[in-house]
């Protein structure tokens, strides 16, 4: 009792303030816990966080122009592209010197490639000129203005010089603008010409198709999960194998199997022709389009929907339904007002899993999607492994990441992420 009236801090047995003792003990505990997960943390940092950060960095990094054409960038700093006049001779001389150096170490093609992303046509101007400028004598051959324009008309175009100036800073929004079908024009960002627009269409298509796939997974998965949860354990286990077996089979095998089933001379069309439902000349086109992607991906992602639904349904007590019916509810009312609301957390978990997986898929759409059924991830893969435009690939990836995070946030606001249960 006397302790309460005491004004000093509460002391532990060893005479130190209890608060500090407690904090110390907790800190030790936390440190020990941290040490236990340290290997995992390190692993995630090295194999996940750092590469993602590096990728995000690539989407804005733009040192190549000033590294390859340092003199030109410096001279162009004083030039105003809005004047509509070509820059002075000094800029041409600087460019000739830069281009000669670059061509000798073969970096002029890289800068050509970079500028070509923003202004198609520049690549060929740089490449063609590089071959000739390599042999020029920079000290004595001037003036270079006429010489360069003679070499290639492109150098007489104000637009080319503007592009060099616009993209000479170390960081650029160019890749991100490109990823939403825009570019930095003379008066700030502008929409690209119609025949170069592609990414918005692809992003919207990816979202739309992923939603369709998620809904078809709910429609097909719900009854299956319900049957699994309500059958006696032995039969349910047997059925469970049928869900898990495809889940364990390689993605490529399943996709190829769908190819064989869906193609025009495939099993499904052959059967339909044989029973006379479809005319031989008008076989159904089920593959190499949106439909093919939706069918194959729904099948591949179905287990990710069924499993969380099943584990949630298993926990629902059947007596609730009996109680509802004994109070006079019809089968439908009992299902809709008593059973269904309790399965929503399972649907939520399944939908998030399926949707996020679907948005990032690229192998299946590449194999069965033709041109109309491919996703934005296919374009990311194209830019990373074929076209070599890593900056654009990274920007598209970053946008995709942002969209997924935003949708997750919206979902949390509407459904509440606490309502999501995996079991």
């Amino acid at each position, binding site marked *: 009792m006397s302790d309460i009236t005491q004004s000093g801090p509460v002391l532990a047995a060893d005479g130190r303030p209890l608060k500090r003792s407690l904090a110390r003990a907790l800190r030790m505990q936390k440190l020990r816990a941290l040490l236990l997960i340290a290997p995992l943390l390190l692993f995630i940092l090295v194999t996940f966080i750092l590469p993602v950060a590096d990728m995000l960095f690539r989407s804005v990094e733009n040192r190549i122009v000033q590294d390859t054409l340092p003199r030109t960038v410096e001279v162009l700093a004083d030039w105003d592209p809005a004047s509509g006049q070509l820059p002075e001779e000094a800029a041409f001389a600087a460019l000739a010197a830069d281009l000669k150096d670059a061509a000798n*170490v073969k970096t002029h093609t890289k800068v050509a490639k970079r500028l*070509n992303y923003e202004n198609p046509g520049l*690549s*060929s101007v740089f490449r063609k000129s590089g071959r000739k400028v390599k042999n020029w004598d920079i000290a004595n051959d001037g003036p270079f203005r006429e010489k360069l324009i003679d070499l290639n008309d492109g150098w007489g175009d104000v637009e080319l010089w503007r592009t060099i100036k616009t993209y000479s800073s170390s960081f650029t929004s160019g890749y991100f603008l490109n990823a939403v079908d825009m570019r930095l024009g003379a008066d700030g960002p502008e929409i690209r010409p119609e025949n*170069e627009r592609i990414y918005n269409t692809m992003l919207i298509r990816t979202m739309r198709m992923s939603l369709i796939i998620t809904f078809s997974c709910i429609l097909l998965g719900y009854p299956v999960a319900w049957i699994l949860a309500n059958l006696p354990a032995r039969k349910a286990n047997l059925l469970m194998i049928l869900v898990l077996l495809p889940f364990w089979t390689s993605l490529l095998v399943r996709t190829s199997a769908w190819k064989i089933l869906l*193609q025009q001379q495939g099993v499904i069309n052959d059967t339909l022709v044989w029973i006379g439902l479809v005319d031989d000349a008008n076989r159904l086109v089920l593959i190499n389009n949106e439909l093919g992607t939706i069918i194959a991906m729904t099948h591949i992602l179905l287990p990710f929907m069924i499993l969380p639904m099943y584990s949630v349904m298993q926990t629902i007590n059947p007596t609730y339904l009996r109680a509802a019916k004994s109070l006079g509810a019809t089968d439908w009312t009992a299902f809709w007002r008593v059973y269904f609301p309790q399965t929503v957390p399972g649907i939520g978990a399944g939908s998030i899993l399926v949707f996020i997986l679907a948005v990032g898929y690229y192998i299946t759409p590449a194999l069965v999607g033709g041109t109309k059924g491919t996703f934005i991830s296919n374009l990311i893969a194209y830019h990373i492994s074929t076209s070599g435009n890593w900056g654009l690939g990274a920007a598209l990836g970053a946008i995709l990441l942002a969209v997924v995070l935003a949708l997750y946030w919206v979902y949390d606001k509407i459904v509440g992420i606490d309502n999501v249960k995996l079991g």
Partner: protein
Amino acid sequence: MKISKLSALAVTTALCAPSAFAEEMANELTLVSWGGAYQASQQKAYVEPYLAQNPGVKVIWDESSAEAVAKIRAMNEAGNVTWDLVDAVASDSMRLCDEGLAEEINHDEDLAAAPDGTPASEDFGDLIVSDCFVPQIVYSTTFGYRTDLIDKPETVCAIFDTEKYPGKRSLQKRPIDNLEWALYCDGVAKDEIYDVLGTDEGVERALAKLGSIKDQVVWWTAGAETPQLLADGEVVMGSTYNGRLFSAIAEQDQPIGMLWDMQSFDLDGWVVPAGLPADRKARVMDFLKFATDTQRLADQAAYISYGPARASSAPLVGKHAELGIDMAPHMPTDPANAGNVHVYDYEWWADNRDDLNAKFQAWLAK
């Protein structure tokens, strides 16, 4: 002063030391090729004989040639080049050379001369399209068609004639060749194709022509796809490499015919990635000299219907190693096949590829 001179001397010796051992050759060789029948022909024609002569050497195959440029670029940037010798098409070899990612070759010093003493640069002749390129074969991208489903097409323009030849077609998912064929069939003279294609209207015109069959096209990315689609009856005609079609027709006996009209000549050959350590480079150059001599290139033609890139190899081309059929009539260069050929302009494509790829991708996605 004295000390710094001494240390400078020490550094120079240390720097020179590795080159003193340059004669030593690595015992592992990573070769990159295209897989399938083509890689098998390389294995039989030159890798096996080379290994027989050099028993200590181990050869590792990688089948990533389709992504050669992107991967070499990535390896170069990471400073860790794991490939020793890469099989690449001519235009890729030019891009790699332009970007400084491939080693320049001195064809006369690094390669074997012909049996009659003709230096290699003369023997390969015009096929050396880039300083970094050692040509191996001449192949062509051409069309195969189902002999039982459609009438025999006479010209390449059959792909645009969906009334006379109904059914799907397969085309490669890239602008090269497709745009040229489209313009040719839209009435542009063969020698004006690249002039027309050089203008925006020309590109629009080619894409519009392709657009007329867009919903009938299955786009392929791997050479094996068209023979498979033809065998399945999924498409009635499609473009692919002539060796793959030969394999489907002669070796697998499929109901497929060859359409040689406007076949697109292309070259394939070796490229040495830049920046290899001395011992690995020594091994690569030793192998390269062996693998591209007159006899080896002629041997390869016994396994696949691609023409050897050396003039001196051509007379040595004989029969198929297993089927025993005469190979000459199946070569793209045979006079009976080479009546109307399309020699595609590597240099034009090296300059304009980035632009047209972007336009083509946008057009495809629409």
